[in-house]
C-alpha cells in the first residue's frame, strides 16, 4: 500500500493540517508520499521532506497551481492516482473543495472527515453534526478520504529526510480563474491551531461588544471564535464560526461566552480538553458539556476574569 497525502500549504510553508493528515496515513499503514502542488512552493516541499515518516515528496510546480483551483489540482492528482491505494487530504476549505472532484473522476465514493482508522478500508466518521459516529467500509479500489484534523495528533514536523521528486502538472483547465482574496489579518493564533479559544455567542449582543473579549483573548494568547448565531446576527465574520457548519476545533481550553450551546455549535468544539462556559441562563445546554461554568452576566464576569488573570499572574 502506498498513500498519497495532499499537503496544505501557502507555498512558502506547510500548514499544520498536513501533519495531522500524515498521522492518519500512518494509522492506515504503508509508504507515505506527500504531494506539494503549488507555485514557487519549494519552501513547502522542503518542509514536507522533513516530516517524520514521509518516504517521498512529489513537487508539482506551475502558475496554474498557484491558487489551488479545484479543477487544476484535481486533474494533477488524478494523473498520479494509479500508483496509490489511498489519497488523503485534510478537511480544510481547500481539501473539501478539491477531494470530491478527485473521487468522482476516479469513480470512487469519497469518505469525508474521518476521525479514526479501524482498518485500511474501514473508517469512523461523524454524521448528523457529530451526534452519531458511523463506521464505514469502502468497496472502492482506491480510497479517497478527507481527514478531520482534530481526530489525529500531528506527527513531528522534523526527523524525516525524504527525497523531493518533481512531477509534471496538467495545463490550466481554463474553467476558472482567481480574482482576489480577503484574508482576515490577525495577530492572534489561527482558530483551528490555537491552544486556547475564546468564543462569543448571541449573548454578546453586538459586534461592538466582542471587543470585550479581546483583553481576555490577549491575556490567554487565544484565538477568537463565535457561534453560528453570532455570525448570523452579523456580529463577526463567518471565518470565526465554530460548529458543524464552521470550523471544528479541539483546543486545550475552550471558553464559551454568551453561547447557549446549540447542537450545531457543540459539534464544533466538544472535543476540546477543557470547556468553560459563562452564561446568564443556568439552564443553557452549554453547561451540560462544560467542565467549569459560571452563571452570571458576561459583561460583569469577563472583565473580572481579565482582572483575576492579571492579579494571579
Amino acid at each position, binding site marked *: 500500500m502506498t498513500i498519497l497525502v495532499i499537503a496544505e500549504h501557502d507555498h512558502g510553508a506547510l500548514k499544520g493540517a498536513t501533519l495531522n493528515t500524515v498521522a492518519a496515513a500512518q494509522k492506515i499503514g504503508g509508504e507515505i508520499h506527500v504531494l506539494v502542488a503549488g507555485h514557487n512552493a519549494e519552501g513547502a516541499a522542503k518542509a514536507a521532506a522533513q516530516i517524520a515518516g514521509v518516504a517521498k515528496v512529489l513537487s508539482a510546480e506551475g502558475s496554474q497551481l498557484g491558487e489551488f483551483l*479545484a*479543477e487544476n489540482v484535481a486533474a494533477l492528482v488524478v494523473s498520479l492516482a494509479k500508483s496509490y491505494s489511498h489519497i488523503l487530504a485534510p478537511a480544510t476549505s*481547500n481539501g473539501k473543495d478539491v477531494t*470530491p*472532484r478527485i*473521487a*468522482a*473522476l476516479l*469513480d470512487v*465514493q*469519497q469518505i*469525508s472527515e474521518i476521525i479514526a482508522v479501524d482498518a485500511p478500508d474501514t473508517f469512523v466518521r*461523524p*454524521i*448528523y453534526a457529530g*451526534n*452519531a*459516529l458511523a463506521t*464505514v*467500509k*469502502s*468497496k*472502492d479500489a482506491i480510497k479517497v478520504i478527507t481527514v478531520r484534523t482534530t481526530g489525529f495528533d500531528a506527527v513531528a514536523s522534523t526527523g524525516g529526510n525524504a527525497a523531493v521528486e518533481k512531477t509534471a502538472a496538467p495545463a490550466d483547465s481554463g*474553467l*476558472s480563474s*482567481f480574482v482576489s*482574496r*480577503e484574508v*482576515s489579518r490577525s495577530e492572534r493564533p*489561527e482558530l*483551528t491551531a490555537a491552544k*486556547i479559544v475564546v468564543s462569543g455567542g448571541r449573548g454578546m449582543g453586538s459586534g461592538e461588544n466582542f471587543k470585550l473579549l479581546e483583553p481576555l483573548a490577549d491575556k*490567554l494568547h487565544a484565538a477568537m471564535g463565535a457561534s453560528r448565531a453570532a*455570525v448570523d446576527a452579523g456580529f463577526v*465574520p*463567518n*471565518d470565526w*464560526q465554530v460548529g*458543524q*457548519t464552521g470550523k471544528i476545533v479541539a483546543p*486545550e*481550553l475552550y471558553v464559551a461566552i454568551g453561547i447557549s450551546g446549540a447542537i*450545531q455549535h457543540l459539534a464544533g468544539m*466538544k472535543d476540546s*480538553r477543557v470547556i*468553560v462556559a459563562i452564561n446568564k441562563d*443556568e439552564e443553557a445546554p452549554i*453547561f*451540560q458539556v*462544560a*467542565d*467549569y*461554568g*459560571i*452563571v*452570571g452576566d458576561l459583561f460583569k464576569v469577563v472583565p*473580572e*476574569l481579565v482582572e483575576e*488573570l492579571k492579579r*494571579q499572574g
Partner: protein
Amino acid sequence: MKVLVSVKRVVDFNVKVRVKADGSGVETANVKMSMNPFDEIALEEAVRLKEAGVATEIVAVSCGVQACQETLRTALAIGADRAILVESGEELQPLAVAKLLKAICQKEAPQLVILGKQAIDDDSNQTGQMLAALLGWSQATFASKVAMEKEKATVTREVDGGLETISIKLPAIVTTDLRLNEPRYVTLPNIMKAKKKPLETLKPETLGVDVCPRLITLKVVEPPKRKAGVKVADARALVEKLRNEAKVI
C-alpha cells in the same frame, strides 16, 4: 438561462437525532423531515436570480424515496417552476446522486446548478464537486456571493481565514454557504400554487445510472458523552480551577 437546484430531504435541523439500539443507523421513523437548510439557500439564490431577470426557469431535483415529493412541493412553493424526482429506495450516496444529477443535466442543459454545500444528515460535502467533475464543468464551492454575467459568474467563497473570489466559466456548479442569503418563508398562496406545478418522476434505471452504495455502514454509535462539570462562584474561583486543577493556563 435555466437554473437547476438539487434539494435533499433530511431530518429537520431542530431534531435531536437518536442512534438506533441495534447500531444500524439513526432513528428516522416518525421524525420531522425538512429540506436540507443549505439547499433552501440554493433555491433562494435561484429564485432571486429569476426575480432579477437573470434566470428564466428553475428546475428543482431531488433523489430519494417517494416522500421527497413533499420536499419538491416546498421547492415549488418557494419558487421553482417545475420539479423532478429521481425515485429510489436505495441508500443514495453522494457519487450516485452526482451521477443522477449529471444525467438530468445532460437532458436539461442548465447554465447553472446550485447545490447546498453539504447535507446535515451525512455531512459529506461532496455532491456539488462530484457533479462538476463528472460534467467537466467549473465549480465554486462555499459561495457567499454570486454575481452572474453573460458567460461567466464571479463567486465569493468562504475559505479558511477569510474570503476568496473566483471567476467561473458557465455552465458551472455553485455550492452554497450560510451567508449567501436568507431564505424566504413559504406563503400559503404559494403552497396552493405549487400543487399545480409539474412534478415528473424518473427512475435511476431509466437514466442509466448504477446507484449501488460503495460504502457499507458497519455500525452507528453515539459519540462518547462529556460529563457536565461544576459551577464555580466567580472569576477568581474559575482562574484557580483552571490553573491548579485543569492546569490549562
